[in-house]
């Protein structure tokens, strides 16, 4: 058993835990054993973690300790625990995208993101629950059951990266890989008081990410603070020969952010008053630190959600066509091939996934493609231009992440449109392909976390993260942990 007094404080970031290891206060093996204990306790209670890799994690930690003893530590993530969302492939365990369709699916290889992290010495400790094929905003469509929000276990953790966020919001020392197609890393981060970035589209290889909407999807880090997110992004980013859409972006930072546009449309009707107030106060706090704040409107914010519904479901209907009952997954019973496809897909997909495939097929079908899909593409380009227009006057856009606070489990699941409303402030960044950083902002009267996001220009990921680090020196809300998350 590890000597607990030698472990870092529970709210310690990855950076602080790494310093703890460097200073010799504990070994990576002790850190990993402590974290595994948390996963098996609170992680299981929250139903955030689906699989835990005890033996492999311990062996990897021992190897890290040996490297450290020889003075050959690989860097800031060596010996640090991390998890991957169920829609990110790993050789260890299964990668089922929380869908009955892929139950027990064994990936042939690690996603490039996972491979790069393991090569940097990070220790894969488990797989986290998510909405089925990452389609959801509450983690209630997961085949592994509902995940609880650590700040109020009767409420949802957000989605689709709900498991990742529930862990990041409950305990330090670690980071988590999630994904974001329309807000799936930022909204859960906001709901659970974690920090996360949706990188510029193409900054991180999508190789090994089980596809939902390919022109929107990104693998994303979620952690305790912006320093940790940046350390992880520096390992993940860069061109990958196995994903020809991954970009060769300069990882050096742009000039620091000095002028921020508060987006007034994100503070008006339909947005909880407590959230609008908190984000306005954050802008004032930035202003008091010398940041110039201007207020602007973001063109087409309302149409963005409609645009997202069309494009994401169209891409999903195409991406999920591969699940046919023959190559992988669930197989229905039929002697007729056509019927075999239909019955297998009926059995393997949950109702939300089927609704989205149906809509996506409809907007692409003959007679309707121009009116829906092609029009959405045209609006998408206008949305991108609208962001560029605002960015001509500032370095970043500031707006809330979610229009409302974490809601009770079951409250919205029977009303798909009420769930889609979760995405209205986040989809814009995916449609435009620009980076967006979610930061803890404040707590409401019920002690539920409120998050805000900063959206920047294409490729400005590191400028956003550096601004996030400055923000977290001015405001320490990100350090808060919920009661009851102790091991």
């Amino acid at each position, binding site marked *: 058993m590890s000597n607990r007094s030698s472990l870092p404080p529970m709210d310690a970031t990855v950076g602080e835990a790494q310093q703890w290891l460097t200073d010799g206060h504990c070994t990576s093996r002790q850190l990993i054993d402590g974290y595994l204990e948390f996963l098996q306790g609170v992680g299981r209670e929250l139903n955030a973690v689906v699989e835990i890799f005890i033996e492999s994690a311990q062996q990897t930690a021992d190897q890290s300790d040996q490297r450290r003893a020889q003075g050959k530590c690989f860097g800031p993530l060596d010996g640090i625990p991390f998890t991957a969302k169920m829609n990110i492939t790993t050789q260890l365990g299964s990668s089922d995208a929380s869908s009955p369709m892929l139950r027990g699916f064994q990936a042939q290889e690690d996603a490039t993101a996972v491979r790069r992290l393991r090569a940097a010495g990070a220790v894969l400790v488990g797989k986290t629950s998510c909405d089925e094929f990452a389609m959801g905003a509450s983690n209630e469509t997961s085949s592994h059951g509902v995940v609880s929000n650590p700040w109020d276990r009767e409420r949802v953790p957000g989605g689709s990266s709900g498991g990742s966020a529930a862990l990041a919001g409950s305990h330090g020392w670690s980071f988590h890989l999630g994904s974001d197609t329309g807000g799936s890393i930022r909204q859960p981060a906001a709901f659970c008081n974690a920090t996360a970035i949706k990188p510029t589209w193409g900054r991180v290889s999508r190789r090994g990410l089980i596809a939902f909407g390919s022109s929107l999807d990104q693998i994303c880090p979620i952690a305790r603070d912006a320093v940790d997110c940046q350390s992880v992004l520096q390992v993940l980013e860069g061109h990958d020969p196995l994903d020809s*859409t991954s970009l060769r972006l300069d990882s050096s930072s742009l000039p620091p952010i000095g002028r921020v546009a508060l987006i007034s449309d994100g503070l008006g009707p339909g947005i909880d008053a407590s959230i609008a107030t908190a984000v306005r106060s954050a802008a004032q706090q930035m202003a008091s630190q010398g940041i110039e704040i201007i207020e602007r409107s973001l063109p087409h914010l309302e*149409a963005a959600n*409609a645009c997202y519904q069309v494009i994401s479901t169209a891409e999903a209907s195409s991406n999920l*066509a591969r699940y046919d009952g023959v190559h992988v997954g669930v*197989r229905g019973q039929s002697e007729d091939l056509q019927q075999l496809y239909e019955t297998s897909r009926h059995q393997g997909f949950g109702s939300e996934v089927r*609704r989205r495939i149906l809509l996506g097929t409809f907007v692409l079908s003959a007679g309707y493609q121009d009116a829906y899909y*092609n029009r959405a*593409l045209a609006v998408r*380009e206008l949305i991108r231009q609208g962001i560029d227009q605002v960015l001509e006057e500032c370095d970043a856009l500031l707006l809330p992440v979610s229009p409302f606070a974490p809601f009770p489990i079951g409250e919205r699941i029977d009303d798909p449109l009420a769930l889609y409303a979760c995405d209205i402030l986040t989809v814009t960044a995916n449609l435009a392909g620009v980076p967006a950083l979610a930061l803890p902002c404040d707590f409401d009267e019920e002690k539920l976390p409120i998050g805000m996001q900063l959206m920047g220009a294409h490729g400005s990921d590191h400028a956003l993260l550096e601004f996030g680090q400055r923000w977290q020196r001015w405001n320490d809300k990100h350090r808060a942990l919920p009661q009851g998350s102790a091991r």
Partner: protein
Amino acid sequence: MAQDGPSHHPRPDPDRPVIDEALVRKTAHLARLEVSDDEIPGLVEHLEKILDLVDTLRSVEIPEGHRSDLHVSQATVSMTREDQSATPTDAGGPRDPAAFGGNAPDWRDGSFVTPRVVG
């Protein structure tokens, strides 16, 4: 078969398609999705509601000569790469076909099994 959508969804736009059982069944067939009879009313209602939301796209004015074929990625990247052979130990390298069979619901003699489609 109902030709009208649910009454609480007025349909102001004459271009708006009629969402009914026939359209849902046709689309489900294109999507290779089985739908049971009792799912139809819910799917009709859902499509009606989501198209109400999607119709906000029609209010956006698209400028003359606007391009909609631009990709979200603004960087100019070469999508091609050197054609190099890879070994089984390389990421993305060749894999033992049997390993793929391990994830298949029916895999026999190195092949995926389907119902008979010819003769």
